[in-house]
């Protein structure tokens, strides 16, 4: 009976799902023994099973909302609780599921690291914060986990802190994310000032405060509070800024490629599948706060990010950086989709992307892992992440190859894959939406189509370079030593490959409307235009296949058209549109400079004033000292001297000689008579 009542208590289970990894984090960190692996795996597996249970209970059922009083400031109560709806249970399963796979994968991948315990601890801290983020029911709580997610990402990127590049990348990631957090915080300030609550249900629910607030005469009014209309847009934009940083949208995208300094297993979980999706999740969770202005900004930022990142991915040589830019590009798709109101399509793509991008990274990790071992064994000092040094691994690592191919097909959106359903659904919606808009919006779908084609080219460039043509560095005879990674890693690839197929998400491989996942979030308000539904996939796939063939010609048949390596377009692409340089100059250097100037100001002007004041006081005191000695004391002395002088003068009269007295007397009498005579 008790078990039964427990399983019905969904809030408690959700809490347990979050707490388990935290428990494991504390335990591993404090135990200090190298036994973290089993513990971490078992808690994460348990956490996954529980979230699966929750998923089955909540999906398409009534949302669950449980909360407790957290604290009270003066008269305002703040609550902490769990809000489970389709979105959060989906994310829970996604996060905990992929985390289990990454746990299994990491056991082998990280086996020889001396600080393995720390790795497990940080990984579990991440799981805790991410699960916490998706189940939280108030903005304050989401913000708390939001930053914790950033913190665990900081720890994991900088896991090899001895490497200067890693610690730099970790710092960059955290600070760039902080800019987004700032936006999030400002959003919270505005919402709180307007509604005096941060509770998601009462704010964003169906009859929530936000939907009952209204705009009148340029004022945004809710109850007794009001503020100028612009603050609604500012609030929306602030939250979006937070999402931009986490989901690596232009202009806050520059941290993600650098974040690849962390272990590849981490890149796959955090910086491809789950954490970077947090921004998209946030937008979806508080969707009603965004007004049309902010949604349009979202559309353009997403579209530009998708396009820009795809162009950069074309020329990168580091296998992980290609995938990182690909992630940025795909996140751009999701953000753009939310901007046009394709809510369910965006979430759908988030889910499928999590699986195929995770697979891409783990397969790449498998290649890196094996090449790394090879390079150590043969003391070959080559860069084992550089695709220019790879080649011909297809026969040696068939599982990694097949996994990579399947995931790439999904990324490109080829038929029978999950990506075909989700990505093409976004593109179809984009066409439908643009048809209802005018002006520059017409070109939007074509930007996305172009981006989609670029995707096909860059990802197959990677595959052809790594798995097909001959290696430039590794001689083929030596390749005999390279095999697929140990079985546990390979199993993970196989499982993930399965999730890249259509069958997991829909029975009908060509219709996204038949997908159970898409149906779970039907919010779309876009007018449907039937013929886009077959035309768009056709255009995309034809173009993609042509480009894949083109890539094959260049990279496998080596009919290199010498893709203008020196040209400025190539430079823009390979240097990532120079964003790092621009930011370094505009922000990092200028803030450092400003800090130096301010410090000089502090020392010279402000402290200078204090010291000047002290000096003036000293000067005044020496002047008064001089005055005191020379004038005041001088007067006293002068009086003394003067009276002495008078005294001396009169003393001369007291000579004691009778003649003197008589003379004097005579003189006085005489002068008396003379004077009286004259007068």
């Amino acid at each position, binding site marked *: 009976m008790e078990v039964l009542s427990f399983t019905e208590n969904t809030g408690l289970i959700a809490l347990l799902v979050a707490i388990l990894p935290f428990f494991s984090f504390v335990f591993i960190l404090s135990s200090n023994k190298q036994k973290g692996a089993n513990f971490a795996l078992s808690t994460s597996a348990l956490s996954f099973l529980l979230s699966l249970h929750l998923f089955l209970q909540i999906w398409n059922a009534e949302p669950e909302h449980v909360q407790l009083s957290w*604290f009270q400031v003066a008269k305002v109560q703040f609550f902490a609780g769990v809000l489970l709806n389709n979105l959060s249970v989906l994310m829970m399963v996604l996060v905990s599921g992929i985390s289990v796979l990454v746990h299994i994968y990491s056991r082998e991948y990280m086996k020889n690291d001396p600080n393995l315990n720390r790795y497990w601890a940080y990984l579990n801290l991440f799981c805790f914060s991410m699960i916490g983020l998706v189940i939280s029911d108030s903005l304050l709580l989401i913000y708390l986990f939001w*930053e914790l997610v950033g913190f665990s990402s900081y720890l994991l990127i900088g896991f090899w802190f001895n490497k200067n590049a890693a610690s730099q990348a970790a710092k960059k990631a955290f600070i760039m994310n902080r800019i987004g957090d700032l936006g999030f915080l*400002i959003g919270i300030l505005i919402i709180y000032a307007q509604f005096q609550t941060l509770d998601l249900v009462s704010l964003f629910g169906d009859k929530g405060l936000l939907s009952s607030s209204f705009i009148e005469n340029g004022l945004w009014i809710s109850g007794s509070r009001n503020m100028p209309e612009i603050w609604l847009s500012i609030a929306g934009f602030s939250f979006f800024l937070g999402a931009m940083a986490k989901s690596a949208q232009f202009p806050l995208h520059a941290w993600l490629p650098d974040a690849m300094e962390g272990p590849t297993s981490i890149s796959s979980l955090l910086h491809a599948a789950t954490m970077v999706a947090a921004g998209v999740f946030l937008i979806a969770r508080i969707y009603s706060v965004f007004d049309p202005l902010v949604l349009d900004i979202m559309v353009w930022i997403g579209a530009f990010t998708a396009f820009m990142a795809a162009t950069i991915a074309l020329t990168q040589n580091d296998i992980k950086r290609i995938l990182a830019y690909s992630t940025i590009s795909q996140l751009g798709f999701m953000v753009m989709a939310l901007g046009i109101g394709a809510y369910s399509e965006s979430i759908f793509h988030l889910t499928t992307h999590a699986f195929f991008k995770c697979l891409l990274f783990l397969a790449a990790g498998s290649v890196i892992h094996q090449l790394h071992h090879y390079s150590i064994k043969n003391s070959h000092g080559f860069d084992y992440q550089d695709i220019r040094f790879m080649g011909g691994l297809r026969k040696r690592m068939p599982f990694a190859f097949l996994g990579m191919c399947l995931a790439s097909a999904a990324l490109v959106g080829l038929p029978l894959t999950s990506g075909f359903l989700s990505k093409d659904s976004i593109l179809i919606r984009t066409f439908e939406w643009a048809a209802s808009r005018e002006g520059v919006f017409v070109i939007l779908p074509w930007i996305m189509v172009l981006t989609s084609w670029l995707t096909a080219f860059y990802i197959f460039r990677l595959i052809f370079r790594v798995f097909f043509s001959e290696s430039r560095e590794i001689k083929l005879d030596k390749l005999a030593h390279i095999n697929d990674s140990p079985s546990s890693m390979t199993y993970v690839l196989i499982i993930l490959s399965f999730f890249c197929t259509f069958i997991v998400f829909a029975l009908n491989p060509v219709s996204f409307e038949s997908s159970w996942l898409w149906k779970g979030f039907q919010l779309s308000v876009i007018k449907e235009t039937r013929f886009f539904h077959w035309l768009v996939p056709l255009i995309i796939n034809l173009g993609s296949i042509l480009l894949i063939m083109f890539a094959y010609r260049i990279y496998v048949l080596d009919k290199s058209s010498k893709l203008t390596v020196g040209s400025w377009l190539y430079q823009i692409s390979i240097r990532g549109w120079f964003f790092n340089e621009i930011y370094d100059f505009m922000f990092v250097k200028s803030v450092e400079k400003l800090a130096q100037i301010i410090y000089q100001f502090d020392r010279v002007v402000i402290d200078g004033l204090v010291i000047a004041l002290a000096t003036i006081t000293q000067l005044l005191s020496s002047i008064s000292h001089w005055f005191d000695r020379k004038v005041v004391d001088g007067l006293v002395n002068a009086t003394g001297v003067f009276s002495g002088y008078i005294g001396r003068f009169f003393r001369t009269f007291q000579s004691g000689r009778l003649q003197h007295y008589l003379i004097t007397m005579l003189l006085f009498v005489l002068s008396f008579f003379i004077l009286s005579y004259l007068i």
Partner: protein
Amino acid sequence: MNLLSILIFLPIAAALLILVLPSSFNHRFKQISLSVSLIQFLLSLFIYTNFNQSIGGISKENEFQFVEKLSWIRLDLGSIGKLEIDYFLGIDGLSMPFLMLSALVMFVATLASWEIKTNLKAYFSLFLLLNTAVMGVFCALDFFLFYIFYELMLLPLYFLIGMWGGVRREYAAIKFFLYTLFGSVFMLLVIIGLYFSVLNPATGNHTFNMILMMSPENYISDSVFSATAGQSILGISARLLAFLVLFIAFAIKVPIVPLHTWLPDAHVEAPTPVSIILAGLLLKVGGYGILRVCFSIFPDSASQSAWWIGLIGLISILYGALNALAQADLKRLIAYSSISHMGFVMLGIASSTTEGISGAMLQMISHGALSAMLFFLVGMIYSRVHDREISNFRGLAELMPQFTFFVMIAFFASLGLPGFSAFMAEAFALIGAFTSEDVNGLLPRWMAIGASVGILLSAAYFLWTLQRMFFGQLYLNGGESWKARLVDVTIREKFALVPLAILTFLLGIFPSLLFNKMNASVLALVQLITG
């Protein structure tokens, strides 16, 4: 004898004991001092648990708790009336949290005093005298008594910096002393003015009772500081002028930009325990004074000046943070970061909203613990190798993993990572500042938004330091001899660091531990200010 009196005078008793003990007991002095702060901590814990959180205090004398009121000086002054000075102690939600903080910070500072090697007798007597003064300030409700404790803090601090400090200790000590004295001298004038303006309704005498000064009906109608008389001095309203004088006196302690330059010098030259007390408690006396004295006695002038106080807070936040970014000396960096973090206190107070003042209070407690922790950590490096130049260290994480662990807690907590107290504090200070325009119209919204940039800058200087000093390949300027001396955290140091870490973590997760105790007082204070 009242509990608060014990809390205040226990250190003095211990100081007398130390003075009479022969020098052969030198090594016992720190134990005596440590047990004093332990007892104080237990006492304050007892006070915390027995504190009635439902009554506010502030301007109602009967709502104060643990009150002790004895008539102290009664002097017939003929025509002027009878001089009435009371020994009047009591606490409300505004002062109670500081008692716990003081005991804790003193405990940590004593543990840091292990490094002091010379003239122990003088050191510990002065140290304990300082302890008495700090506790006294937070308990005193008679303005005369308050002023005595307030000035009493300066004396031991002057000697502690001037005798046990660094190379330029005399300069720093004099600068500190004169700076703060400058503020408090004028304060005395205001106190006397208030004395002659206020009558104790019970006895009909003039009084120094602070609580009576908070009610307008106790003022003689034509006196200097009477709100109805509207007297002016030098063309400025007398009440506003008095408010400004008191505000500057306390603000120097906080400190605010541009009255802050004593702080970096004093911190850099002071020995570690004194830095801990300076940052952990002295600055809070400033913030506490502003709330207890300036805002409570002159609420009308406070509202008038709120805009400027908010602006000062904003400037302090950004200016302090930018300065911190430019520092090469770790201790100086933390000193400037203190200025930045105390700016949030000013901002929260200026907003005069419940959220803002709660945030400011939490920020003071939180910063008290965190700055103590930060200065303790700097002191650990300095005591090992006598150097704290950031560029002389790299990759310390490898050499001192536990030390790095504590540094990361302190840094991330200070930069406002949620889950630690500073986040809650800064968030609520900002919320208060932002809602102010809607609630009472005192602060414009852009101030809160500008101040939030400070959170970004604090991440920048802390993480940059972390990356430069602790990560990367190991490099030490002093080579092998430094490497041998840089041992990891010792047991004694853990005893100091762990309680602070726990406190900041607890307050971050359960801010209600503090909020519950002061909600009533904050409400009463806001009621008093905004009417």
